[in-house]
């Protein structure tokens, strides 16, 4: 075996150029496939993290009626015990109470349908963590003006500065990123920004009667911290729900869709506002290991009173996201399928050329006593080696790229970012961590090499020594 391996290794370097071209085409395919796949999977992971992990939760406990008719009338009651029980359930990381409903918000002449989310401000820190999204800085026209006159930014930065005017920021690093500046270079502006751009938002307290408003919604309502807005809707059993709510803070929600409509309210205030004493619409849960979601869902469901409660998973709660991801996933895989198909023909062509060129040599080998099966092994070894060189180098090249973008997701800025956000996507391009999809690319190449060898191996099997020798 060792000897056949050695022969195969020497054989592939006989036509150095062809080997390198074939390996290079595999290299690019693997590299491209991994990077593309990583961005896709990373994006899905990010979307799920933003809309599910940091908003709806992987699982939600609801009233069984609520799923088909998400009205406040289909509430759950006396929930303290059940929240405790869920928090104690194995695999459940955290379970938090929620009241969610749509109401009309208005301020001055502006009004808009908004999603009111009643939360326990303390427990919610473990799920959507609005505190972490609180806007602390705003690029007001004044500060933009100041930066323009008092500092000497480059032309490019000035453009970006104007482009991002009125945007809110939780931290200055992100602001630096939006202006295309290194956070350390940006430090010189911190003083100016702290002085003029600070935004005095506060998080909700336990029984707060104020609200947090998402940033795009606040812009739409032309309201800011300290202003009061009117919320008008229906409480439980059609009761009128109306109230004045002071804005405690503005939250920058990553998902553009949510950022257009989200209002956070303390649970106690929401229960009064909507006439839901001690009642909830749902309990949102996150898990220790998301791969266990279906098992945990089933196991909780089996212990519940089916008349009163049901646990739904995020794919049921947010089928649009699920479909969006599945659809994108399919088209991505199809694209890679086509790419691999092309590479397959490259590999196939190489094997065919190899056996055509070496027909006479094969004839000699069989003539002097080498079995065709051994010849076949050499040929397969050769192709596997070329495939291996291409695959491994492709993986090694993709590794640092994928890893660095995993640790430090690429933030899209400027016009491109706006385009992304207008389409409802957050303007980041994260990659997935290095895991199974790397190996899958290697497996695909292995499979292709084997399939590409089938016809050539048939040819060897049918080869007539005589004809091969005469060629």
């Amino acid at each position, binding site marked *: 075996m060792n*000897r056949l391996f050695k*022969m195969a290794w*020497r*054989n592939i370097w*006989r036509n150095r150029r062809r080997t390198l071209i074939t390996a290079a085409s595999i290299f690019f395919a693997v590299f491209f496939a991994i990077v593309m796949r990583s961005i896709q999977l990373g994006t899905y992971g990010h979307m799920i993290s933003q809309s599910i992990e940091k908003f709806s939760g992987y699982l939600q406990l609801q009233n069984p009626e609520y799923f088909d008719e998400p009205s406040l009338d289909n509430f759950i009651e006396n929930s303290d015990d059940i929240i405790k029980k869920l928090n104690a359930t194995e695999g459940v990381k955290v379970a938090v109470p929620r009241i969610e409903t749509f109401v009309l918000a208005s301020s001055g002449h502006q009004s808009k349908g908004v999603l009111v989310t009643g939360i326990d401000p303390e427990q919610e820190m473990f799920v959507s963590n609005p505190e972490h999204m609180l806007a602390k800085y705003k690029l007001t026209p004044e500060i933009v003006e100041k930066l323009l006159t008092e500092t000497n930014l480059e032309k490019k930065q000035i453009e970006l500065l104007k482009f991002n005017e009125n945007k809110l920021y939780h931290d200055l690093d992100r602001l630096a990123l939006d202006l295309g500046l290194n956070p350390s270079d940006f430090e010189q502006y911190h003083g100016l920004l702290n002085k003029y751009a600070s935004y005095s938002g506060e998080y909700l307290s336990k029984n707060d009667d104020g609200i947090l408003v998402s940033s795009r919604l606040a812009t739409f309502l032309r309201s800011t911290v300290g202003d009061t807005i009117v919320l008008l809707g229906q409480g439980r059993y059609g009761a009128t729900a109306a109230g004045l709510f002071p804005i405690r803070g503005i939250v920058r929600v990553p998902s553009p869709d949510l950022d257009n409509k989200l209002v956070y309210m303390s649970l106690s205030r929401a229960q009064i506002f909507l006439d839901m004493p001690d009642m909830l619409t749902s309990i949102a849960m996150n898990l220790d290991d998301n791969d266990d979601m279906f098992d945990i869902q089933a196991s909780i469901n089996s212990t519940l009173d089916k008349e009163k409660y049901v646990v739904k998973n995020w794919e049921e709660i947010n089928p649009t996201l699920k479909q969006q991801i599945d659809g994108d996933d399919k088209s991505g895989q199809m694209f890679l399928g086509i790419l691999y198909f092309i590479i397959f023909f490259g590999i196939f062509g190489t094997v065919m050329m190899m056996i055509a060129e070496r027909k*006479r*040599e094969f004839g*000699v*080998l*069989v*003539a*002097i*006593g*080498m*079995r*065709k*099966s*051994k010849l076949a092994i050499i040929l397969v070894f050769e192709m596997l080696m070329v495939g291996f060189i291409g695959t491994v180098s492709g993986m090694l090249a993709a590794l640092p790229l994928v890893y660095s973008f995993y640790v430090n997701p690429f933030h899209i800025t400027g016009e491109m970012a706006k385009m992304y956000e207008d389409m409802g996507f957050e303007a980041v391009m994260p990659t997935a961590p290095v895991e199974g999809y790397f190996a899958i690319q290697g497996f695909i190449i292995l499979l292709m090499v084997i399939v590409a060898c089938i016809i050539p191996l048939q040819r060897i099997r049918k080869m007539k*020594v*005589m004809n091969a*020798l005469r060629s």
Partner: protein
Amino acid sequence: MKVIEIDNLKKTYSESEVEVHAVNGVTLDIEEGEFTAIVGPSGSGKTTLLNMIGGLDIPTSGEVIIGGSNMNHLNGSELTDFRKNNIGFVFQAYNLIPVLTAKENTEFVMKLQGKSKVECEKRSKELLESVGLGERINARPNKMSGGQQQRVAVARALASKPKFVLADEPTANLDSKSTETLLDIMEKLNKEENITFVFSTHDARVVKKARRVITLEDGKILSDVRKNGGE
């Protein structure tokens, strides 16, 4: 002792419109230790005959019996193994394995036979020395002259200790000096180690060295002459 027995051997090619009787009823025996040349003009059937003797081609009719085994009774891989263990081949175009050194080429069939590393090394060195290439054991074919390559081919053919060596026009691609060297080596191996050689040629100088000359014409034996002791 008879090494090769051939009985009424025929090979007819009927792929084209006209049938070609490449070998048309050849009957002959080869004795152990013979140094036999098969001669005849181009197209007389020399290659076809040698190929059938070597189990590389299948006769239309007739039999080849080697050391008592009827070649007609062997299937594809049995035939391959039979060649490996019983027949040494030297081809016109040297046909060494280009990625292997002289020594590795020589050892190749021995390794297929499952011989030990030590045995392979010893024998390949001895053989390469006996064909005058003791200095070049690590050279690859593309670094050797045609004559040297053909001498490696002879060493390779002998390494497996075959019952006989078949060589189809072994000197056709060589200049006269290399031809002479190669024939001297073959003759020496034949005389000193009693190796049976059957080779085809249409080179008069090569024919002179042979101790038995079988002349073919149109696939039939025209004459079969044994010389006593050669020249």
